[in-house]
């Protein structure tokens, strides 16, 4: 299906590199479906056009504010990641975006249509996968797609053609007439993608889309998402797999306790520009306001100041993988030097053999660190500094922004 392109690098959305076999979204023939207000224009939107906007969106359940004053703009051609610990309000936010829940305050618009006032106009542009894409298990894959295509207003030959197209895109061809209950989780995910693409959406909203996919499936999925974005679709994706977000997304927002505490380009975050890696104090991040529409292209990153203080990221550390023998000695030496270090997760089975430690240090500390190890009689086989991952940033950010409010008690992400 979609495995013939590169090794999972992300093509930048601004410079689409669409190869010949990618999903060509064909323009829809026939008149604009005016009766439902769903303007189905064939051409992709110009990159940068705001597709999804959230303005001051808040949600209260009972007496608790699950989501508070969230602003966001997702633009055509970008993949926008949505991160947050469990209970931060991610799912609630996503369900408000796709019309499953109603915001207590604020407005959500898709291409200018209020999702809750002008539902059919707005949701006609949206394709959705909410958590596990639960389709009807007692129907076949094709019957499921017919079901959803009917609700999208597709009829007759057009419906058949479009179903064939999406089945082809996700590569379910051989099994499409089997009952869904006989599908593997990965195949159900593919069916989920197929139904999301049926109506040729301008906005794809994905909640934990790679659940249950094997690594190859994840890569295919990632490539598909990148291609769709390259063709001008706006993609809004939440995931708990930070590496996924890192590889897939152009921009990321981090949600904690119902608030967006940071928003930045992924590239900036990783290169440290976003959080002032070398300098002290970090950048004083302003929030991306509703009027700040130029932000997406500018590379500026923002952290919402909760108390506006330093974030604990003033001197970003890197993870260093140390192949050393014996690791026990190395660990002792590092700890004496005040360096945080732990055996790698899988752990050396035999502590006499060379083992791998993960140390956390600022880049300029590394040479001194090696000298100490050698002085302690440790053989150093390899030193591999690792790039800061989004995960590290994420953990640091969410820890730094802890403000005493309890983690979500509702168990939802």
């Amino acid at each position: 299906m979609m495995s013939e392109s590169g090794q999972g690098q992300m093509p930048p959305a601004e410079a689409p590199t669409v190869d010949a076999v990618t999903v060509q979204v064909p323009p829809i023939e026939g008149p604009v479906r005016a009766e439902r207000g769903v303007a189905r224009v064939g051409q992709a939107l110009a990159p940068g056009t705001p597709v999804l906007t959230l303005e001051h969106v808040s949600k209260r359940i009972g007496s608790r504010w699950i989501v508070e004053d969230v602003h966001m703009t997702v633009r055509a051609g970008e993949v926008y990641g949505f991160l947050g610990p469990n209970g931060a309000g991610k799912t609630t936010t996503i369900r408000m975006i796709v019309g499953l829940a109603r915001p207590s305050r604020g407005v959500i618009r898709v291409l200018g249509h209020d999702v809750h006032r002008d539902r059919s106009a707005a949701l006609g542009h949206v394709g959705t996968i909410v958590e596990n894409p639960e389709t009807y298990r007692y129907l076949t894959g094709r019957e499921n797609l017919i079901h959803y295509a009917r609700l999208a207003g597709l009829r007759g030959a057009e419906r058949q053609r479009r179903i064939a197209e999406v089945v082809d895109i996700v590569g379910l061809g051989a099994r499409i007439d089997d009952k869904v209950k006989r599908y593997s989780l990965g195949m159900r995910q593919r069916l989920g993608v197929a139904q999301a693409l049926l109506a040729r959406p301008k906005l794809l909203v994905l909640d934990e889309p790679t659940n249950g996919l094997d690594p190859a499936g994840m890569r295919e999925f990632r490539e598909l998402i990148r291609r769709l974005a390259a063709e001008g679709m706006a993609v809004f994706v939440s995931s708990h797999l930070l590496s996924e977000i890192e590889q897939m997304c152009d921009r990321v927002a981090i949600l904690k306790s119902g608030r967006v505490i940071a928003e930045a380009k992924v590239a900036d975050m990783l290169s440290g520009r976003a959080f002032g890696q070398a300098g002290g104090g970090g950048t004083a991040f302003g929030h991306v306001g509703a009027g700040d529409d130029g932000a997406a292209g500018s590379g500026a990153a923002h952290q919402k100041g909760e108390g506006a203080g330093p974030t604990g990221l003033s001197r970003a550390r890197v993870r260093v993988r140390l192949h050393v023998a014996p690791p026990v000695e190395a660990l002792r030496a590092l700890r004496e030097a005040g360096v945080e270090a732990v055996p790698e997760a899988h752990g050396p089975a035999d502590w006499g053999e060379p083992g791998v430690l993960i140390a956390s240090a600022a880049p300029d500390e590394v040479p001194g660190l090696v000298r100490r190890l050698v002085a302690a009689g440790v053989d150093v086989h390899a030193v591999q500094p690792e790039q800061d991952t989004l995960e590290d940033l994420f953990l640091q950010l969410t820890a730094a922004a802890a403000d005493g409010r309890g983690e979500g008690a509702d168990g939802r992400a």
Partner: protein
Amino acid sequence: MREIGTVVLNEWMKLLRRRRLWVAGVIALLTVGLFTLVAIQAKHNADSQRPEAQLASAQRALATLRAHPSGDPQYRSTVANLRAEIAALKNEVKSEAPGAPWRDRLRQQAEALRQQMRLVPPAERATSLQYHESQGQLMQTQWELDHNVRPLPGWVPSPYREVTEYLSFAVRLFLPLMVVILVADMVAGEATDGTIKLLLVRPVARWKVLIGKWITSLWASALATVVVVGALWAAGIAVLGNTGAWQPVWVGVHYAWVSGAAAGVNTGGPGGLAPAAGSVAVPLYAHAHLLPAWQYVLASGGLAVLAMLAVATVAFFCSTLFRSAMASTGVSLGLTIVGLVVYELGIREHWVVWLWFPVHLALFDNWNGSVSLQAQMNVPLGFGVAELAAWSAVALAVSLWHFSRRDVLNA
């Protein structure tokens, strides 16, 4: 409208693939199967009750007695009784013979009834049980003469009578069970399976989704009820033959409840205990009329469908309210069972009749007056229809209100 039609199409597709359809089918099959047994039983009973059979057995008994005469003082009276019985049975056989002049007999009967009515003093006629019963019988005899319908002897089983009797019970238990199984997961099932999320993100208003599901529920329930009633009818005719299609059936009978004294009924036993006021139901035929049995069964089927639409709407309401298909089905089934029990035990309470819709599920019993007799208040057809309609309207309104507002956060 077109979007609702789309939803209906989808819902039919799903309904036809669900295992519940098979469960409902099994209930329908059991319902019809049980009735077939009932009909076969009725046929057997009738065979032993036919006058020819009774005559033969009486004659055998007489022959046995006379073969062994005894000096027992009882002997002579026993023989005399048997002889009288044989004479009566011979008469009955003769009057039931195909060529017997039944019209003459009916005319004589009508004349006798008129005589009886004249015997009641005009001042007492308004509340007299005898006057009104005679009036009803006279109307029926006259109807039979007018429509040239020969009365069916009491022992002859008619599939029409069997079907309506069975339906009175089936419509309170079996058919509601079937409908509940069909309907109770229409919405709750989607919440349980989590499919409601991908259903409600479509560009179709929620109320249209709900109305489409409701229409499908009604449609399926009506269809299933029609099939079951039709199958009952067919099974009855298959077992008992097509007898009694034109026999008259009363509908629209009202009652007046008067004291035994006013009714002219001597119900006071040897102890002289007079029945309490309002304890005798005097039938009133002012708005009543007679229908041929086949029309009555047809109408009863229609009324059963109407009642099942109400059951479907209430089950649908449960389905909208509960997020678990199990809870929704359980509560709906519970309502059905409790409905039956409350009907059996509480029908004498007027507030139950006013407020509790399951009392009115056998709408044709409202129509023919038997619910009125049980409830000791007049519960005509319109009463039952209005109550079912009121419950349905409230159930649908609350369903719509709830469904179009609720946040789908947990499913």
